[in-house]
């Protein structure tokens, strides 16, 4: 498999729509081609990101407008003389034909000037094991990842709030600081004690609320002035 074929089949592969034999060949190519591997990783992330976007309804007249434009272009094509249409269809091949001649000439020159070298393992990289191709993440694993993403989102937000509070707590009374710390420890313990799922999310949410309240209206968060 070459890069062009790989690029052509990549979308179907990432959608899990490629047959086993093609998928195997494509994975083999990805193991050895860094450029295609990077492209596959990029497309995979784009697919996941796109999937998270809300659907957009096209305007009602969009398809009618597209069809109308196509019809106009076909009518315009019908009026073009046959020799211009032929020239237009051959135009894309001209640079390739010239390139082919140049390539053949270069190959012949090399054939004349150099002795044949022993063929090695063209795809093997010295001292480096073939890297794993970005395999499709099965939906069952993706769901597990999504669940851990929820946890990490709360963890990040809590860390950010704690850091922001850290900027102001130097101005607090020691008694308030003590009370705040005790409450945070209590709420964090609730998070740690909860199993993953709704119970843990509720614990995170309670901690978030307390931290946000402490940050934006500290005397109302614990009913005493800081």
């Amino acid at each position, binding site marked *: 498999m070459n890069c*062009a*074929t790989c690029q*052509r*089949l990549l*979308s*179907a592969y*990432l*959608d*899990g*729509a*490629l047959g*086993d034999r093609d*998928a195997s060949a494509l994975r083999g190519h990805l193991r050895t081609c860094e450029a295609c591997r990077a492209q596959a990783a990029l497309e995979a992330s784009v*697919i*996941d990101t*796109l*999937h*998270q976007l*809300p*659907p957009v309804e096209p305007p009602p007249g969009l398809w009618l407008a597209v069809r109308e434009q196509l019809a106009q272009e076909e009518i315009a094509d019908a009026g073009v003389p046959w020799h211009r249409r032929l020239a237009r269809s051959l135009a894309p*091949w001209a640079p*390739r*034909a*010239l*390139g*082919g*001649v140049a*390539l*053949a*000439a270069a*190959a*012949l020159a090399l054939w004349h000037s150099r002795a044949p070298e022993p063929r090695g393992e063209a795809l093997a990289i010295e001292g480096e094991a073939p890297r794993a191709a970005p*395999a*499709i*993440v*099965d*939906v*069952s694993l*993706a*769901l597990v990842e*999504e669940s851990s*993403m*929820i946890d990490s*989102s*709360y963890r990040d*937000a809590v860390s*950010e*709030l704690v850091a*922001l509070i850290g900027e102001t707590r130097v101005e607090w009374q020691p008694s308030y600081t003590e009370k705040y710390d005790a409450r945070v420890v209590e709420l964090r313990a609730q998070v740690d004690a909860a199993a993953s799922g*709704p119970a843990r*999310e509720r614990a995170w*949410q309670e901690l*978030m*609320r307390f931290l*946000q*309240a402490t*940050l*934006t*209206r500290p005397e*109302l968060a614990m009913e005493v002035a800081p």
Partner: protein
Amino acid sequence: MTRAALLVGLGVWAAAAVSAGDEARAQPSPPETPIPTVVERSRLEVAPAGRAFVNLSVENALGDVSIEGHDGTALVIETRKRAPDDASLDRLRVSLVPGLDGSVRISTAVDTTGTDRALSKSAARIDLVIRAPRDLRFAARVGSGQLEVSGMDAGGDVDAASGTITMRNIGGATNARSISGAVTLSEMFGPVDAQTINAPVKLDTIAGESLVTSAHRGAILARRVRARRIELMTTTGDVELEGELALAGKVVVSSLRGNITVRLRGRGAMAVRAMGQKVDLGTTKTRVVKGVTMAELGSGDEIAGIDLRTRHGVVAFAVNF
């Protein structure tokens, strides 16, 4: 054959070969590798056996969930599954577990046994449309799908990861929580609690005992709100509140970096406290004590309290008696 003729012949052959190769590769890809999609639709009607349904729990991490209230007693569940092929479609499961206590649990899952080919999440989907008796309480969770609930009278809890939450015409106590999906609630008649981390909250026509909403990185826009207790809080987003102030009601709007705009219609007396980089309470009868701008407006025995504070934003308040 001369050397020049050999060169020209080889060149022509090479050009032809390159053109042929390019022609093969230049085929448009969509017709060659269409992505097959198999869709299965089903409809199931479940009537209560003896005891009426009182609780509905729906969990679908594979797509959208829509719950619509109706006047009947049965649950009508419409399922739409989508996968690249039949084998993958068979891996997508929907289960319904009725309980003896009048509860019903509907959940989706992916069968992981006996699979030899990975199925990407973007290629697998289950969407659920559920028509439920409007007087049962609901709990629903989605991942990246959209969650919509309408026409229910007993309230419920909804959760989303990156999916959006849209609720309309809901009675009873309602909780809506999302990580990064926007939350839109309208025509809510009961206590409302909404929370997001990285998403905005839009509220329209909220009439209940309390409205408590927080967004970490997201704005809160609340219109036509009438609640005795209103608490809106953001870390970075702006907060806009337009509504009616209840007698002896309490309004607390706070933010770290967001601007606060509050427009209220009200009767009776109200005490307003505001802190911000710039404060406009819509009146000249204000006094500033330790950085807090205060104003007493209206008259009466039952005093409503309004507390508006933002550390880095501005506060704009207007009241229309």
